[in-house]
């Protein structure tokens, strides 16, 4: 287990493209941190800088109080699990798992003990004599994890380890990673673009966009109190609905709808009187019954829920809305459903930052 501190990390490539800007975080021992963001946001670059596979252009990387910014990867005592498993096809699973220890010239008997213990944890004991090509994708990824475990590293780094797996296998392997984290109590850094993985696995999530850290917080913090429009739109499925609204008295006036504000909300938006703000409403916070007319364009039944796609009646694309209603719905194209919002998020139109935390 280890404490890791990333202090003002920047990554600037030789062609002057900056991939990561001023990344700061202190990671506690045993914490599970997930870096999440769209493709090209710099999350994998950050992970590779931590692993030592990319040079750090500026800033410092501190592991257990020791500056490892310029230390070569082999001396960092970290293990990385890759998306494509990176297993040696000509070696058996046992040999793959033992490989890093063999290179270190560890005692073969010690290697044997470690490999068997890791195989036991990952339920791979019966597969040890097989070649990677004889295993399924999930099993191969477990082997890759086993190879990391046997090294007993200070830090585990996962670079989109589930991206190559089908949806069902992704779910089960995700649970295995959760159990592994609990069992080992190890400090783990995990990169993904899948918000489900981020929300289910993380102790804390780092949400990134365009090389900038947008928000660091627990999954609930990011979901309930997104720091800005980007986080609000990225976290949550289906994504949050946004409307440009005018703050007028105790009302928010949107495209062809009006919403009453509570006294607390009115206080909060006092400085925005007469100005436009962005109103955010999660689909699950849109409930049937109210004063907002939604013209249905598509009805998707998901069993427990119904997703209703449409737009505020009388508007075009600026009034698009997705509602997530409980139960089985049977809304027809063109139906008008009256809805209300039971939770709202407010964002400054200029800065895109949240005006406050969620207000009920």
């Amino acid at each position, binding site marked *: 287990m280890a404490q890791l501190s990333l202090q003002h990390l920047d990554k600037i490539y030789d062609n002057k493209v900056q991939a990561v800007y001023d990344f700061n975080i202190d990671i506690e021992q045993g914490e599970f941190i997930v870096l999440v963001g769209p493709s090209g946001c710099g999350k994998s670059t950050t992970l590779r800088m931590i692993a030592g596979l990319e040079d750090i252009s500026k800033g410092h990387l501190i592991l257990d109080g020791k500056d490892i910014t310029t230390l070569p990867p082999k001396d960092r005592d970290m293990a990385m699990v890759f998306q494509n498993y990176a297993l040696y096809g000509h070696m058996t699973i046992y*040999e793959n798992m033992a490989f890093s220890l063999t290179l270190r010239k560890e005692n*073969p008997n010690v290697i*044997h*003990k470690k490999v068997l213990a890791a195989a036991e944890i990952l339920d791979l*004991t019966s597969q*040890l*004599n097989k070649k990677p090509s004889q295993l399924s994708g999930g099993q191969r990824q477990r082997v890759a994890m086993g190879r990391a475990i046997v090294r007993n590293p200070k830090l585990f780094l996962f670079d989109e380890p589930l991206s190559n797996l089908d949806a069902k296998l992704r779910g089960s392997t995700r649970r295995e990673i959760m159990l592994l984290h609990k069992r080992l109590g190890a400090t783990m850094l995990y990169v993904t673009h899948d918000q489900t993985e981020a929300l289910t696995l993380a102790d804390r999530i780092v949400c990134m966009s365009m090389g900038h850290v947008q928000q660091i917080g627990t999954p609930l913090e990011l979901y309930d109190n997104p720091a800005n429009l980007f986080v609000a739109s990225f976290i949550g499925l289906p994504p949050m609905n946004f409307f440009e609204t005018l703050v007028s008295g105790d009302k928010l006036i949107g495209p062809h709808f009006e919403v009453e504000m509570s006294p607390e909300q009115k206080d909060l938006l006092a400085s925005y009187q007469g100005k436009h703000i962005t109103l955010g409403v999660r689909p699950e916070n849109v409930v049937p019954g109210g004063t907002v007319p939604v013209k249905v364009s598509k009805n998707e039944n998901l069993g427990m829920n119904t997703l209703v796609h449409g737009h505020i009646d009388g508007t075009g694309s600026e009034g698009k809305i997705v509602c997530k209603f409980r139960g089985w719905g049977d809304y027809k194209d063109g139906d008008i459903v009256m809805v209300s919002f039971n939770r709202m998020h407010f964002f400054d139109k200029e800065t895109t930052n949240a005006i406050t935390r969620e207000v009920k």
Partner: protein
Amino acid sequence: MSQIKAEIMTEAYIKKDRLRYVKNKLSGNLAIISIVFNALFFVSIYKSNVGQYYYKPLIGASIVYNLLFMMIVFLVSEGSKNYSINYSYIAIPVAVLQFARIFVYPMMGHRATTLTTGVEEQVMKDGQFIRVVIYLIASGVFLLLSAFIGIVKCKNLQKHIAEIEANN
């Protein structure tokens, strides 16, 4: 095997248990070394300035045997790597044949003389004879070592697996 079981494993037990997952590379590599020495023998034996001494049916048999030897010992190498005891058993007579071969061409050539440009010469001179005999002996010895190590390891592994199965 549980964590606790892993902790109480003795060094001797672990050494045996490793056989289940680690290939017998030692036997395999010794067999390959045997092939290498046989190849050295093969390329060293037929000297070109000894007239027509070697042009007999035996040379064909010798060449065919060399090819067969290399094929069989390669299979022995692969088989013994994977703890197949039969391949190790096969290696023993093949190794013995390597010693027996000393008495075919090296010895026959060493004893024989032939006319080369009107001068009677020994077909295989002492230096060449010693060299090819060493190659054959080395080839045989490495193959025997490969076979014996293979048999011992195979038996250890078989015994260990039987013990594990009995305990389960």
